[in-house]
């Protein structure tokens, strides 16, 4: 299947979901042929292996102390924090973006649009602005993490409840209003940033640019169970998502309660996005990049297969990028910026090749 083919989006997925006859035999699987299924599993295995190799590399490569030294384990432990946060980021962004794109029946938007980043930067900037640098540096405990997350989920729930239910519920309208709220919040935090001293500005900027070094291990006991639960629920939700991705009318015809189900899915998306944003900071186009690549790689629209592929790709990209930039080019700080840039450029090319939206 060529690149263009898979971008035809929902028209194809309808065809793929339907049972089809092949060489006289009834075939109702997610793949068009056994060959494609084999290809899928091979690719998944290779990507997972790449991710594992890169994470082992991140853990062990270039370790300054020898293996038999007692301080070898602490060094690995410290590096493990970064690897776990990559795992969380990959899980959150891949599942959230794939779900979001299916629910909105649109392959080129990401949930990051809904203003999580703006909210995150407003929370951080206003902490620094109103309470000063000392308070800002100490605003990293469990309480602040939970507070940020609760705020983000609350805002998205209000948004969904307000704009998706009722007589005039409209998904595009909700998206647009989410973006505009984000823009408004950005201008508020932009103003506050302007009044900061350059030293404070640097302090803030290091936190506002997504980085796994922002993650603190003490958040993991809360973040990991939440993410695992949300991801598990979404995976169970796969078959519903297959139907929802066909669009409102088709899904309703198939007997799915459209509105209730998309709100459930979007709540899970909000949970994942807010965990990821408050744990490692904003990443706008990473999810887009991952989702797009995974549709290409999986060659199916069945979410049970797209989800694992998306996760494998996201994890391989993150760990691979960190390994290369950290150990070979010695510039770890720009990893997220590079990923964002690549994602942005891919977004542009996909956009310009689109025929319909």
């Amino acid at each position, binding site marked *: 299947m060529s690149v263009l083919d898979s971008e035809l989006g929902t028209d194809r997925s309808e065809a793929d979901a339907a049972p089809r006859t092949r060489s006289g035999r009834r075939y109702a699987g997610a793949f068009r042929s056994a060959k494609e299924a084999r290809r899928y599993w091979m690719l998944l295995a290779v990507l997972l292996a790449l991710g594992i190799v890169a994470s082992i590399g991140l853990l062990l490569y270039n370790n300054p102390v020898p293996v038999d030294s007692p301080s070898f384990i602490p060094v690995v432990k410290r590096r493990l924090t970064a690897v776990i946060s990559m795992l969380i980021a990959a899980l959150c962004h891949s599942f959230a973006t794939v779900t979001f794109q299916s629910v909105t029946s*649109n392959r*080129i*938007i*990401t949930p990051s*649009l809904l203003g999580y980043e703006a909210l995150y930067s407003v929370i951080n900037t206003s902490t620094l602005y109103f309470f000063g640098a000392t308070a800002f540096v100490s605003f990293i405990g469990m309480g602040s993490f939970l507070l940020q997350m609760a705020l983000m989920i609350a805002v998205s729930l209000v948004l969904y409840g307000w704009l998706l239910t009722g007589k*005039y519920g*409209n998904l*595009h*309208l909700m*998206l*647009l*209003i989410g*973006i*505009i*709220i984000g*823009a*408004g919040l*950005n*201008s*508020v935090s*932009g*103003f506050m*940033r*302007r009044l900061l001293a*350059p030293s404070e*500005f640097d302090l803030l*900027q290091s936190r506002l*640019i997504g980085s796994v070094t922002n993650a603190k291990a003490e958040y993991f006991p809360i973040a990991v169970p939440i993410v695992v639960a949300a991801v598990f629920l979404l995976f169970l939700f796969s078959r519903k998502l297959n139907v929802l991705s066909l669009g409102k009318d088709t899904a309703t015809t198939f007997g799915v309660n459209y509105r209730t189900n998309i709100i459930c899915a979007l709540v899970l998306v909000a949970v994942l996005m807010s965990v990821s944003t408050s744990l490692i900071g904003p990443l*706008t*186009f990473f999810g887009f990049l991952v989702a797009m690549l995974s549709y290409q790689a999986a060659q199916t629209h069945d979410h049970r297969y797209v989800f694992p592929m998306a996760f494998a790709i996201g994890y391989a990209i993150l760990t691979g990028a960190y390994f290369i930039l950290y150990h070979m080019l010695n510039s770890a700080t*720009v990893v997220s*910026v*590079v990923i*964002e*840039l690549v994602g*942005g*450029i891919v*977004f*542009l090319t996909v*956009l*310009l090749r*689109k*025929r*319909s*939206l």
Partner: protein
Amino acid sequence: MPVPRNVSAEVGIASQPPLSARRTIWTVPFIAAILAVIALGVVSLFTGVYDIWGQEDGWDMFFITRVPRTVALMLTGAAMAMTGFIMQLMSQNKMVEPTTIGTTEWAGLGLLAVYLLIPGPTLVMRMTGAIAFSFVGTMVFFLFLRRVRLRSSLIVPIIGLMLGSVVSALSTFMALFFRMSQVVENWFIGSFAPVQAGRYEFLWIIVIITVLIFLYANKLTLAGLGEDVATALGVNYNRLILFANALVAAAVGIVAAVIGNIPFLGLIVPNIVSMARGDDLRSNLPWVCVTGMGTIMLCDIISRVIIMPFEVPVSLILGTLGAVAFILILLRQRKMRRL
């Protein structure tokens, strides 16, 4: 491309009074609006911390900072409101304006590129960079709009804003890489505080752009009917789109280089005017101009008074109020089931 809403309104004879009834621009409400803008201008001239009457050099200061600032406000307001108006006409979408399709971000990228290529660039160089990049950005978006079939008119601003964030991600990357983040950050907050004699004169080019827009108003209105209709009526559609985009890019680029980012003005003003007066495109143009001037002056006066003796950048006021106004406009249209 979908048939624009306003066409059906104009075609139905019963829904619109004949053109002759609306032809006169100098109606009583319009003169009242102009007087209101002049009054705001006077308020703007006499708002500030420096004591003009008491100090010896008070009147010098008046002509060095207050007059240029008020003029700059008027020109910028008119420019941004009209660019929004023209872009909405060309794209047949009420939600399009420099902020929502990324033109502003392109201009910012252009400025940054000039800063990187030339150490200590002059205003002319910065302006050229901003204009060139915003032209490219606007063309990219219009090219994209012409190619795709849209399911909803709301998709356009969503895609445009995403495009804008791609471009600003690029700017962030370059700024981080070359350690110029605070330049970008400072640029992105448009403010009239640094405007004074000798620093704003390029804004007068906007007068030329305005005159051109008024001269071509009829043709631009035809282009707003879509490629097929415009071509049938004897307009070279592609050339006109190129021309309109050049005008938009010039206005946005000049404002970006001299003032900075002025968000949402091009969206709110034309929408409010068309809500109040209907979609009578030709006679709305002067109204858009005047309302744009009034809105930005009001916002600037608020921004100067709100934390006196300091001042807030006007883009903060516009960004916040504009976001609220945008959401209200969207909700109102939702109520009217026009979306």
